[in-house]
């Protein structure tokens, strides 16, 4: 389904910097009052990797993404995203990457098309019509382009947020719960897109509480529970042992006493 759009993030463009670490977190920690949402997490994601942060609800995934994208400052620890410290230069980080936040919906009184154009103008992009059109086609929601965002279904809004994040063809995308609200056919489209994007040299950091997604499309996963990273490694390591990811995951989470 992924049509290999004329994307400028093809591998060869970055041969020089290839295999650089796109995300590096060192002992990242976030406290909300007495709650430690993220507890000294260190991880790194290399270029061309599809990394999945897997964990149950409330385990700290969103908090982690918000720190990496400079939306909230960490309580302790540090991070570099494409070489930039998101706590020091959040706007520069956001200029370089694409983000799909968990909760945020597009502004009520713009149409879907106007919203994409709005984001394109914020990002100073050229060939706006062409870029947006490509996304309406890929995610099949061109028929909704002139409907106000507040009147769109959740699924269509999610598509719009997807388009918004990839409009500038970023080398790195951080996606919080990517498949939520999408029907099975569209989930397939999005999964294929993400795989194709990574094949072309893009890097994805996604969070999910759904095991199948992690197992199916991720190269590497990190398992997070109660704000702590319990495990991280290639997906094959787990599947190679013959164990189902689910039992592995449940063992990890049950074994985590929060100590």
């Amino acid at each position: 389904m992924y049509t290999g759009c004329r994307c400028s993030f093809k591998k060869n463009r970055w041969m020089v910097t290839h295999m650089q670490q796109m995300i590096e977190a060192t002992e990242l920690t976030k406290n909300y009052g007495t709650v430690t949402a993220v507890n000294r997490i260190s991880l790194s994601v290399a270029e061309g990797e599809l990394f999945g942060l897997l964990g149950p609800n409330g385990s700290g995934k969103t908090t982690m993404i918000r720190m990496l994208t400079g939306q909230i400052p960490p309580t302790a620890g540090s991070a570099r995203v494409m070489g930039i410290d998101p706590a020091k230069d959040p706007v520069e980080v956001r200029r370089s990457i694409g983000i799909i936040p968990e909760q945020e919906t597009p502004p009520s009184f713009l149409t879907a098309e106007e919203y994409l154009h709005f984001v394109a103008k914020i990002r100073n992009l050229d060939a706006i019509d062409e870029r947006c059109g490509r996304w309406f086609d890929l995610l099949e929601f061109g028929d909704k382009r002139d409907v106000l965002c507040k009147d769109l279904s959740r699924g269509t809004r999610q598509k719009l947020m997807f388009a918004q994040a990839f409009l500038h063809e970023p080398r790195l995308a951080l996606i919080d719960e990517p498949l939520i609200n999408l029907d099975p056919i569209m989930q397939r489209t999005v999964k294929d897109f993400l795989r194709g994007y990574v094949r072309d040299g893009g890097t994805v950091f996604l969070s999910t509480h759904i095991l199948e997604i992690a197992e199916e499309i991720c190269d590497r996963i990190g398992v997070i529970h109660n704000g702590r990273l319990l495990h991280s490694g290639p997906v094959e390591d787990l599947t190679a042992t013959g164990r189902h990811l689910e039992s592995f995951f449940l063992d990890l989470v049950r074994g985590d006493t929060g100590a």
Partner: protein
Amino acid sequence: MHSTIFGSVGFALFPVVVAILALLGSLTLPVFADVLPYDAVALLAHALFLLMGVMVGSFGLMGREFMNRRFGQASLIAYASRSLPISEQRIFATFLVKDTVYYILLYVLPFAAGFAAATPFIGIDPVQGLVALVSLALAFLLGLSAVCFLSTLYAHSVALFAGTVAVLAVAALAAFRLGAITVSTILPPYAFFLNPALEPLALSLALILVPAIISVIFVTVEYPDRTKRFENHLDPLSGRLHALGSAHFIAKDALDLLRSEGGAGKVIFSFLIPLGLVWICLRIMIRFIPGIDPLVVFAVLLGVLSATIYNWLTEFDSFTSYAFLPVEVREVIDAKLKSYALLNLLPAVVLVLAAATSGGAGSLIPAFAAFVSVSVYTLAVTVYLTGLHPNVMLYSAWIFLRYLLAISPALLLLIFASVFDPRYALLSLLLILPAAFLIIRARVKWQAWEMPRY
């Protein structure tokens, strides 16, 4: 309902601040008694609460955003009413009652209490405090009910609404010219305050209840049409505004305003009607205070009211919807200021029209200067104190107090000076300096607030 964002203490203290201000204001009454007789102050207070009723009501019936803002989750019930066995009438009536109780507890009661506490020191019968409680509440309700009535008319037919307003205006004007009515006949709550008898009380209640009941019976709830489609107006609009910079943000502000429920009606009800009311009150007030230049005072009040345009501009926007894009808070604030400047053409036209129709064109230049400076200064104070959240944050006692303290001395001084000579209003241009300073500070302050760093 507002308490969550700044802690419940700030919200709970809001009425205390109102009471203290009323107390201090009342204590200074004897000082100004020569220039400003008690009756005039009482009229002013009643006009103020009438105006507040109008403002509260005007945001009221214009659409769903309002319901969301005022009632939070309750609006879900209102919109579920099609599937629930509750009539829209009943829900709307409940809202009116809730609103009445809410605002009376928040403003009227503390105001009257502050006044009552001052009475022993200024030689007024303490019973007047109780009378004030009733009469000010009546004034508030009169404004609320009148504007509910008008907006129900508006929702049914704009022509019917325009016709009614025109007839009422002409009738009032004619009656005034002929001297057939006095201030207390058109504002019975004020008459009740001066003379707490049955007749003005009954008249007030009738004038409140009849329009309120009519508007409840004929209420129409505007259900958004989800299938409506719009052409891309963002591109042409931002193309036209290109020279201003950040044109896409300004274009978005314009579309938010035009497409949100209520649309142009919002402008009429929350801006033009209150302005008309202010103008009428002023024409009445000048009988009490000779030497005052009505155009300059109107310009000052126009400037303050204009600053509420900023509240409209921020109503449908939140920085969280930009927080994942490469956008700085100061860029959003700057764009709002530009939108504000554009929208201020509307009050500027109102001022010129007021000057032209009232024969006060002689003081138009100082009045215009006063309008621009007060508008810019009030805006700057609002932006500095509330950032992108004026609709919520002004309900914090501390912020509200600072807002009043920053604005009222400047305004009073300005009005006072203009009594001696309208040309003194030109001095108001000095306010531009602190305004610029506040805006520069606000950009830094709110950048740090919305995007905290280490």
